[in-house]
């Protein structure tokens, strides 16, 4: 898959997340980093048929639940995912994580993200 196509597909996934998912909007930057890392990481693993569970902790169960729901929605909205290779999915999901980190954390204009307490 060329870069332009990957970017177009990544934009579709990003559109879905920004429109539907609340997990990306935690009020502190450090929480957003963890949410993006764990949920998008597990979503990529599920899409690629890999094991996405790390342990039996409630925290891991939570990230996995969000990832399972997101995977289902991705497949419902974007049938092209079923025909995309694991390698390409890995590339697209990596780009997506970078984009989400930028929009929601590094490039965000939300001044509350750096407050030290909840």
């Amino acid at each position, binding site marked *: 898959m060329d870069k332009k196509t990957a970017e177009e597909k990544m934009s579709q996934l990003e559109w879905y997340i*920004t*429109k*539907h998912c*609340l*997990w990306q*909007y*935690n*009020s*502190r930057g450090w*929480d957003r980093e963890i949410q993006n890392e764990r949920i998008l990481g597990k979503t990529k693993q599920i899409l690629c048929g890999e094991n996405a569970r790390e342990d039996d*902790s*409630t*925290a891991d*169960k*939570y990230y*996995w*639940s*969000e990832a*399972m*729901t997101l995977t*289902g*929605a991705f497949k419902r909205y974007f049938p092209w995912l079923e025909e995309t290779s694991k390698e390409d999915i890995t590339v697209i999901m990596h780009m997506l994580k970078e984009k989400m980190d*930028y*929009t*929601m954390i590094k*490039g*965000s*204009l*939300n*001044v*509350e993200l750096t407050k030290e307490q*909840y």
Partner: protein
Amino acid sequence: MPYHQFECSECIPERLHHAVDKNPGEQLTDALPLGYLNTIPGSISERGCAYCGAKHVIGTPMKDVIHLSHGPVGCTYDTWQTKRYISDDGNFQLKYTFASNMKESHIVFGAGTMLKSNIIEAFKAFPEIKRMSIYQTCASALIGDDIEATAAEVMEEMPDVKVFTCNSPGFAGPSQSGGHHKINLAWLSQMVGTGEPEIFSKYVINYVGEYNIQGDQEIMKDYFYRMGIQILSTFTGNTHFDDLRSMHRAQLNVLECARSAEYICDELRVRYGIPRMDIDGFGFEGISDSLLKIGYFFGIEDKAREIIAEETARWKPELDWYAARLKGVRVCLWPGGSKLWHWAHLLHKEIGVDVVSVYTKFGHQGDMEKGISRCEPGALAIDDPNELETIEAMYKLKPDVIFTGKRPGEVAKKIRVPYLNVHGYHNGPYKGYEGWVRLAKDIYNAVYSPIHRLALLDISKDEIPTDKEFETRQTLSDVKLSDEIKNSTVLRQCTSSYDPIPALREKMKKNESYLFPDPETGELRKVPVEKLMKNKVVDVEQ
């Protein structure tokens, strides 16, 4: 996304960075309205105070509690009964409000002694109520009354009562949101962990940021119970004081209104390791995704799918009847804090209306991130608008209906724009599948009301048509519809009853539909209705 300059606010230059036009192709990183800042002098804001946010929004929905404001009687009166946070056991929290009734002499000589006698008097007047919340106000805070010490004295003299103190006077924050923050953390510090609940299911949640407006909580409770999930506490709608003392025993915090209650979820995650799961209880897709992910968490996604299929089949034809008739209707989504993002995308997708503006009175920038992401390009996003800005926006955007609270709603009516009360609701509950249809019905009735059409005529200057015959909502709404939709045998109007909550309470009392898996064996069994109505909580030795 350029910032939006209101003509009426040119004289208040600080307002420029509080409004943004969402244009196609632009991103949140281009512009984001400022939020959660002190209201600019000269701008007549629609906000409430921090005392109101703590007491009225979060404290008072607790149902077996004497809610006492330590301050002038006006503070408690003005935060009484204006929101329909009902309860299933008699609405004590709505019927009564309490104030220590501070006067000028108390400001000079102190009001602590009077407060103590008032607390005792209130408990004696309602001997069946053993729990109390005391709310600090500006007056009592400024003279330094120590409500914690007074509460401790009373609890020593009356060992069977418990008193929670909330130190959130009106000036303790830019808006009601400051009060949400304070009462979240006060409850966590004073009360969580002081009670041990009886766990009767393998699956246990706190339902957080849900205030049972016209029965919202009871709609969602029915879904959770059908999945076999025990709701340890609801923070704070239709809940008992003691349930909220045992929040630390849940496996998952299901968070609805993150604006008012994310703080306690974040702290419960840090202190007790309970994950925070944000959900949407509104809109078919929002609820379905939410039930499904809760189902995944507990490994009961099949149960969630059953409910989703059943409820969708029951209510979708009714939602679609309204969606066909509301397509393209222009709305301003102007709620307080969270509904701009709970509703923006699904109003458009599922009910067909165009959200031309979102605003928030007390939201933070995070709420604007969500709201702007979820509405369509072209919308105007405003933080903490003043009255002149909302009027200018309505003249410019020409909405067909406004979704807001009753104060700005009355302003809208004066310039002949109908409004729906999305704080206390018109004909709620609006949560759940049935609730979303009820909202669609209310929008339809607001937009196509023949009476409203008459109100658009100004008899002092407009020509009054005499050739119009009798009109109904449907003659107005069906003008542009295709025959296929008009004559559809699948689509139908809302069949929800006038008030769906009594039937749900009857269902609960009959206790025939809910099975909970035993926490040890997983065996499905009924739980006595008394426990469903009021769970046992035992005091923890401190």
